[in-house]
């Protein structure tokens, strides 16, 4: 049987405001438990919410970035349910009147094809706290620092047909929200979390199958794996004559397993109603225009600029424009080195592989854009060879100093003094008289192959510091003497 997968995403994006959506508590990550939970965040009796202007503005900017309708009259509602990390017994969110209406995002797939994914709406809401299970001898500890952090929940239409599309969409959103500066994009800190709705149906079938929701995936990798796992499970169930239960599931990335959530067993009835402590949020045309004008360059525009300004290939430009921090880093390197192409190669090559190896984000790179730019400058001015450059980069990565310091301290400068190099060439030729004889007797084709032997010997002798062009010229001259 031929199955088709249908995927819709709900993406929670933490807005990078200084304070919470309804209180003046800090949203900084990693503080002592409950040290950033004030009277309002704790749901103390008698406390009331007041909306953070920045949260509204950032949500609107997201809407503008995806060409969505901005609802000039939006409203907050209460979603009622009991959970220890939800201090008031309701989450303040939006339902009937979300601030961002329908829009769309274009994704690009590996084969170069493009696809538009529709956004149903995006709404503002408050994040919940965290339940901690370690170190509480069988109980759970509740930390409410995160409670009240502003979120936008972006709800897509079920427009994706496989994990690749879902990941491309998720990455696109990551790129968008970081580019317009409304989210720090730190996945490891939960700044972006994905709920994935998956169903399968027989190819050609119009009616959607029963879907499951896999909640709280916090990396692209886990998302891809969780989708694959769920699709496989659903097909297995259906092919063995079973039916899919509409349920909420949890994916465990460590074990690559998933299971239905127990806490959601009883059918939820959230009893939404307009929050009586908050009034309608009104936005004027003028305010929207101001926010539109303040919108930073979008990834699509940046990509085009990278192609025209730096003469990068479309492929390189796409990668480098996708993430704001990566874009800024690349432009920093290019500005210092004055060579965009070389900068792009180093950022996407050596730097990317080190980031990947150590599993850190570009913002955590121990080599700054300045340093990489300086190193490329040394490469271009012939101070070091590209082979040595890799050594310099590794030393910089390990915190051994700026490129110039490393080159100096390790004596990695290219040997460009022709007198010294000449002596070394003569020494190698003298030490390998038989090979020299053979070279001189050989025809042109064979000579080309044999030339490498001499280069290798000399590189060994100079520990790679010989300037390759100079070396080649000298060697050729001496061999043909």
């Amino acid at each position, binding site marked *: 049987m031929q199955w088709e997968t249908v995927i819709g995403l709900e993406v929670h994006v933490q807005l990078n405001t200084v304070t919470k959506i309804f209180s003046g508590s800090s949203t900084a990550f990693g503080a002592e438990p409950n040290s950033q939970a004030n*009277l309002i965040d*704790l*749901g*103390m*009796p*008698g*406390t*009331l*919410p*007041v*909306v953070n202007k920045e949260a509204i503005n950032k949500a609107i900017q997201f809407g503008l970035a995806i060409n969505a309708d901005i609802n000039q009259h939006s409203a907050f509602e*209460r979603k*009622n349910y*009991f959970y*220890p990390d939800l*201090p*008031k*017994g*309701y989450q303040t969110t939006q339902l009937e009147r979300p601030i961002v209406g329908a829009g769309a995002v274009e994704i690009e797939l590996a084969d170069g094809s493009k696809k538009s994914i529709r956004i149903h709406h995006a709404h503002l809401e408050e994040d919940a706290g965290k339940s901690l299970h370690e170190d509480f001898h069988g109980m759970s500890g*509740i930390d409410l620092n995160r409670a009240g952090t502003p979120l936008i929940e972006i709800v897509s239409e079920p427009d994706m047909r496989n994990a690749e599309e879902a990941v491309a969409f998720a990455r696109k959103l990551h790129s968008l929200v970081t580019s317009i500066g409304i989210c720090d994009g730190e996945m490891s800190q939960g700044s972006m979390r994905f709920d994935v709705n998956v169903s399968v149906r027989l190819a050609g079938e119009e009616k959607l199958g029963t879907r499951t929701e896999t909640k709280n995936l916090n990396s692209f990798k886990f998302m891809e794996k969780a989708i694959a796992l769920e699709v496989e499970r659903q097909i297995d169930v259906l092919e063995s004559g079973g039916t899919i239960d509409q349920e909420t599931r949890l994916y465990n990335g460590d074990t690559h397993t998933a299971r239905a959530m127990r806490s959601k067993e009883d059918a939820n*009835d959230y*009893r*939404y*109603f307009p929050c*009586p*402590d*908050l*009034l309608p949020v009104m936005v004027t045309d003028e305010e929207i225009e101001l926010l539109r004008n303040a919108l930073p360059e979008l990834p699509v525009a940046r990509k085009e600029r990278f192609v025209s300004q730096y003469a990068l290939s479309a492929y390189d430009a796409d990668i480098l424009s996708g993430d704001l921090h990566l874009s800024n880093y690349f432009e920093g390197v290019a500005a210092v080195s004055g060579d965009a192409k070389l900068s792009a190669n180093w950022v996407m090559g050596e730097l990317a592989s080190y980031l990947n190896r150590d599993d850190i984000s570009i913002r955590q790179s121990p080599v700054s854009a300045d340093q990489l730019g300086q190193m490329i400058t040394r490469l271009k001015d012939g101070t070091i060879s590209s082979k040595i450059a890799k050594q310099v980069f590794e030393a910089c990565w390990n915190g051994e100093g700026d490129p110039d310091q490393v080159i100096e301290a390790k004596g990695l400068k290219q040997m460009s003094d022709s007198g010294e190099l000449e002596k070394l060439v003569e020494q190698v030729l003298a030490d390998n008289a038989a090979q020299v004889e053979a070279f001189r007797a050989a025809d042109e084709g064979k000579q080309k192959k044999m030339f490498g032997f001499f280069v290798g010997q000399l590189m060994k002798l100079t520990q790679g510091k010989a300037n390759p062009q100079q070396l080649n010229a000298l060697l050729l001259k001496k061999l043909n003497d």
Partner: protein
Amino acid sequence: MSLHDKTLKQLRDGLQQGEFSSRELTQHFLSRIASHDSALNAFITVTAEQALAQADAADKARAENSAGVLGGIPIAHKDIFCTQGVRTSCASKMLDNFISPYDATVVTRLKQAGVVTLGKTNMDEFAMGSSNETSFYGPVKNPWDTQRVPGGSSGGSAAAVAARLAPAATGTDTGGSIRQPAALCGITGLKPTYGIVSRWGMIAFASSLDQAGPMARTAEDCALLLQSMVGPDEKDSTCLNRKVDDYLSGLNKDIAGLTIGLPEEFFPKDLDGRIAESTQAAVRELEKQGAKVVSISLPSVKLSVPAYYVIAPAEASSNLSRFDGVRFGYRCKDPVDLMDLYKRSRSEGFGEEVKRRILVGTYALSHGYYDAYYLKAQKVRRLIRDDFARAFEKVDVIAGPTSPELAFNLGAKKDDPVTMYMADVFTIAVNLAGLPALSMPAGFIEGLPVGVQLIGNYFREDQLLNVAHRYQQATDWHQQSPVFGGDK
């Protein structure tokens, strides 16, 4: 005249002129509470030590010429207002152990004005009730007849003021909780326009209806207290950012030419004829002073009780979800799991009426019933507001009885919530519309006080207080004082 018979205004003047100190005054009221409150149960918590310290501070400020406008005057707060360092129980077992970590804005404002806090007054649990019988701390008794209820939910504040245990008190009014007990206890109480007094720190019952207001013996005293309670507050999104009105300077204005509307719906056929007559008599007094009286109709007002008993419980069911035994308040013993923690903490911590209303509200919001109940009630709410808006095109003030009945016997309606809900039949529409209204003493029937309700247009508290003040210049109902257990 003993100190406790003086009005707030007289006490203020006495303090200003150095006739007595705040310490003497505070001590006097504390002594009265100590010797008389056992007969009334009007206070949940008496903060004697803090009160005397505040009194000394007020006397010192007075000596240094830096006393606030109400410097040194003792009052009581309904136990629904958060008071830092003092138990704030909302008359519930749920909050019996809750020492508030902060002050409500109303409390802060009055502190800034220099008042001394005698203590926290009894009330219906979470302000849900019209008789003060739902309190975890036992019912309050009406000082005019201690076999009878004082009304509710601000019954403790009303009884304390009526019995001269405090010159004035704060109250809150969600469906009549200031006005109905004021009427049943023979004092003056004002529910302001929704949004002119901050709700920050006032434990929420129904957020879109709740409003704090003053309770005192006279309209003038209510004006004095209100003046120090109102004003914008950045902590409450629903508190209006508008300049504060002057409630004092126009109190004695001539009311000649003022139009008073009498809604036919406030005088139904089955209304106690004596209450109707007391109301008419009060209106005649205003007519004597030059007011014009016209008959009006507010047809949708008859739906205010059903609309209210959807909206208020719906909001309450959500507002009371935070009482879950996790961060503060009551927690059941040895919960076996999370569900057990929630269910037993809430079932043991809340009283019966609170639980009933939570259930009604939960039901009204639940899947399949939202449109039929909640949404419908919200639409009816608009009809009611529109009725008032039309009426205020023709009249300045609307008058009628505050309560359809006199103070009833304790326990008389305890097992019949629907009959109890009808106690607020004349007061509820005002909360749904968000209008200001007051109740003032307008006579006695069989030794029990009768109250008349005056309803004003939005932000016209000044006019209501003016009319009531003029009425009180011509009558002495508000000066009568009850004789109750051990008083003489």
